[in-house]
């Protein structure tokens, strides 16, 4: 269960969002600048709402009424940033291990590395990776934290077609294989349809609709899904 009630200001922009969804994978969908990423940063603890309440699967991460504000480092959320943010001085193995949960075993590490098809990349530095590979490492790094929930910020943005399909394929596999609460930020219908169960449509910092994925898909025009034929 995902419960978000967030009020925050960033410069002239004002976000007033209230969403409650039982979905395992919720997409925050809307045009650029509508407040999706601000919402995700607030969930991760990187932006502090002026007031509100953030609860994921019963864990209260923020509640202005009771002065609860769990520090980012203790929220245990696997955040995949749009710009990946791999540490440039560490190789792929060190990046993956950076946030690895203490309880995670070598087997878990190997499983994630296999799942995301990373064995050949472990000794490379981020500067030696392609866009799709960088995104896969960022996803692996977040998963190895063994987080309570996964936060994905435009995971396919700025990737060329082949890389998009490569990353999307792995994300689909994760969705099937892991029962992990996921919040996805996207402005691309293709990504939302592939990865979400429920969609919160956001415009100008406000929720305009909360739809199941079927309703969302039905509302799309053919042109909204340019890559759907290719990616299935």
């Amino acid at each position, binding site marked *: 269960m995902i419960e978000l009630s967030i009020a925050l200001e960033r410069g002239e922009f004002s976000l007033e969002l209230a969403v409650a969804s039982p979905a395992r994978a919720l997409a925050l969908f809307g045009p650029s600048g509508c407040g999706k990423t601000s919402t995700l940063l607030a969930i991760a603890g990187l932006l502090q709402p002026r007031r509100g309440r953030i609860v994921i699967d019963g864990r209260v991460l923020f509640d202005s009424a009771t002065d609860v504000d769990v520090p980012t480092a203790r929220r245990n959320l696997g955040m995949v940033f749009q710009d990946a943010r791999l540490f*440039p001085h560490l190789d792929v193995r060190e990046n993956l291990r950076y946030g690895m949960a203490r309880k995670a075993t070598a087997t878990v590490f190997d499983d994630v590395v296999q799942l995301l098809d990373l064995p050949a990349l472990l000794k490379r530095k981020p500067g030696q990776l392609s866009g799709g590979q960088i995104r896969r490492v960022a996803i692996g790094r977040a998963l190895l934290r063994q987080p309570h929930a996964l936060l994905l910020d435009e995971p396919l943005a700025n990737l060329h077609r082949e890389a998009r399909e490569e990353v999307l394929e792995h994300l689909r596999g994760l969705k099937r294989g892991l029962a992990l609460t996921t919040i996805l930020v996207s402005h691309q219908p293709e990504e939302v349809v592939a990865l979400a169960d429920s969609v919160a449509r956001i415009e100008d910092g406000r929720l305009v609709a909360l739809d199941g994925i079927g309703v969302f898909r039905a509302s799309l025009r053919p042109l909204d899904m340019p890559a759907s034929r290719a990616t299935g």
Partner: protein
Amino acid sequence: MDVLTHAETVALALSFKVSLVGVFASLPVAIACAWLLARTRFFGKPLFEGLLLLPLILPPVVTGYILLLAFGHHGAIGRWLDAAGLSIAFRWTGAALAAAVMAFPLLVVALRNAFESVDRKLEHAAATLGAGPWRIFFSITLPLSLRGLVAGLALAFARAFGEFGATITFVSSIPGQTRTLPIALYELISTPGGEAGALRLTLVAVAVALLASLVAALMLLRGGTRRSEAEA
């Protein structure tokens, strides 16, 4: 035939010792101050910054006199150090203190710039991976600032190596204890027949300064190249 006389060699060795000890002793404080300036906001920050930079602006003789007032045998701190058997006035440790104070602002400025050049988004990513402030600093901020740190150390060392005014005011000119290379050079210039020795020490001083600025330039240049690659 030796290139330098015994007295000149002693002065040169003492200068290296005093400069290295001074710079490395002030490094932890400089790192802490630079981090505060680069990463925090607090009341009175401009005043704090101004105080840190004061040794760069004050006449060195004034700095030396302030050190004498504070750390001399009758000084507020000096009398306590004397009582504890840790007197530094007119000893090489006093010369190292003078070198540290004079080099400190250069170290702080270089480190501050280095810390500010580290993308804060990487630190935020580390926080989402469970890292607290200390781990973020030692695993992300400091390694990514390493070139700036080395450049700062080189410049601070050169400044400490050339320190004259504060040193002679604070700890005078005692052969083997406080007569560093610049002081020995000054005395050679003031002594009839000392021209050859003065020229030798001048060449040594120029060589050390050139080497230090070369190291600093290489570090800053390569650091810049690396950032450009990362951004590309």
